[in-house]
């Protein structure tokens, strides 16, 4: 099977710091791929470089067999490559419904229509509400996004990204700052997502990682340390020894301040 997303020697440098260093990575269609590693491993930079927020210093990004390295962020999103941010990035002075509807109306190609009120675009409105319902926010559709709690904001961002018709979603630490119940809801939501959707998840909560992921890649100092099925990563000596001599991989990751 050809990978949906393939990185070849992807590099991003900040001055002399190689935050992402010659990363090769392949994500197969429908895969739930987790990306783990300690703080400063380059996970967020890798995300930003793949999404097009940051330019690649070297290497290529292939998406669905096409080289998208030179494409702008909006073009990549139009191809179905969507991301969330470590700190939920929302439209805070808009209503909760508007946040999701903004994603839906771009997909529906009505984002620049002004011949009638938005609520008269029935299909867009109802699909936006469905996506809100899926994350349990339908009851708050009319509230300002700024009125939501931290956990609710993350849920809203998930709904927004799923509403943008993605083929690959990159979640950047989706459960950080969520309560246990919210984390559970998020994991449930991901498990219910259609198999055709491909996920790349940066996550610190290893329970979530091993519950959801088919494949885990460990990033360390900008380089890929190991990549394989979860069981193999749990047992990997290189992963263990690379981290300050920690006895068990779990100790290391759960000991992470974030």
């Amino acid at each position, binding site marked *: 099977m050809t990978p949906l997303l393939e990185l070849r020697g992807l590099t991003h440098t900040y001055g002399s710091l190689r935050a992402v260093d010659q990363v090769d990575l392949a994500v197969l269609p429908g895969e739930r791929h987790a990306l783990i590693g300690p703080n400063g491993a380059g996970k967020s930079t890798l995300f930003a470089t793949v999404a097009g927020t940051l330019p690649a210093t070297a290497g290529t990004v292939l998406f669905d067999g096409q080289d998208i390295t030179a494409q702008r962020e909006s073009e990549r*999103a139009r191809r179905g490559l969507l991301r969330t941010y470590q700190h939920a990035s929302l439209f805070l002075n808009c209503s909760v419904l508007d946040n999701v509807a*903004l994603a839906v109306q771009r997909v529906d190609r009505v984002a620049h229509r002004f011949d*009638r009120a938005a609520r008269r675009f029935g299909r867009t409105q109802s699909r936006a509400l469905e996506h809100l319902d899926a994350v349990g926010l339908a009851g708050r559709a009319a509230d300002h996004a700024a009125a939501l709690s931290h956990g609710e904001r993350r849920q809203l961002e998930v709904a927004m990204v799923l509403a943008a018709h993605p083929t690959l979603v990159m979640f950047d630490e989706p459960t950080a700052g969520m309560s246990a119940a919210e984390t559970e809801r998020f994991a449930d939501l991901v498990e219910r997502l259609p198999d055709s959707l491909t996920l790349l998840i940066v996550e610190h909560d290893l329970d979530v990682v091993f519950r959801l992921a088919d494949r885990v890649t460990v990033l360390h100092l900008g380089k890929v340390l190991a990549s394989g099925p979860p069981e193999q990563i749990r047992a990997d000596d290189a992963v263990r020894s690379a981290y300050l001599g920690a006895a068990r991989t779990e100790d290391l990751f759960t000991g992470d301040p974030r």
Partner: protein
Amino acid sequence: MKAASRTMTSAADRTQAVDDTRGRPAARAALVAVPVLVVLTAAPLVLGAYPVSTMTRILAFAVLVLSVDLLTGVTGLPTLGQAAYFGAGAYTAALVGIHLTSDALVQALAGLAAGLVTAAVTGWVAVRARGIVFLMLTLAIGESVHQVADTWSAVGASNGLAGMPPISLFGGAPLVAAGFVYWWVLAVAVIVYAAVALVVRSPYGRTLRGIRDNEPRLRALGYRPALARYGVFCMAGAVAGAGGALWAAHTRFVSPGDLGFEVAALALLSVVIGGAGSLWGPCLGAALVLLVRDNLSASIGGHGPLVLGLAFVAVVFLLPRGIAGIRRRKERLS
């Protein structure tokens, strides 16, 4: 670029969502709108010529203020350049009135087109910037157009354009009475208000609010916001141009002062006083600002700008969310 994002968020802070009307039953909006319209329509029947003339000017100015609000309040692009498009509309309408036809409809459409074209020609310079840099560029554009009007002899240079005949409607007799001109200006202003309200509530309006709140996020969702920004700039230019045509229909004299810095500043002040993002608030602000400038000014020896200058300072400290914000605060408390 960092500065741009910094200023953009601050422009968003300054404004607020317009969509608070959605949940409210349409009946309640009509409950306010219908009496307001009735009172506005009946005004010439009870009031004398002078107050009616003042109200006409307020309405024309309110149309300009709506265009500023569309940019500043809805899209988060604070502007000091809209007076240029207002002036383009006013000059075009006056030229049409003097040389072609006294038909008010033709003049209004010509003014609208002039505002649209002027904004389209000059806008691409401005819409590349955000926040306070945008403010700076629009100011530069506005002042340049003002200088052009002030020196170009084809439009009367600093003397302005005089001798515009009274407007007529649908081939009828010239409308000399202040009341008829007022009704015409009111009708157009109401139509423009409705059109702007529709844009604000449409999917495009939602896109514009998205630009105001978080443009990088919009891009990450697959939008190309540059075109949407340019579009709203042209749209606002058209609205301002229509306002200018209404202004000319009433005053029948256009001078460079009508598109100067002061007019642009007053329009922005009206939006800020009224509450950026709300539509009725800035219209109220427009009335307040013009009344202060024209009436209060006379009673304190022509030093209206002094009062307005103090008003700017006071508004920033006392009314950070404008008149519309007061109401919203009360709603939240109750």
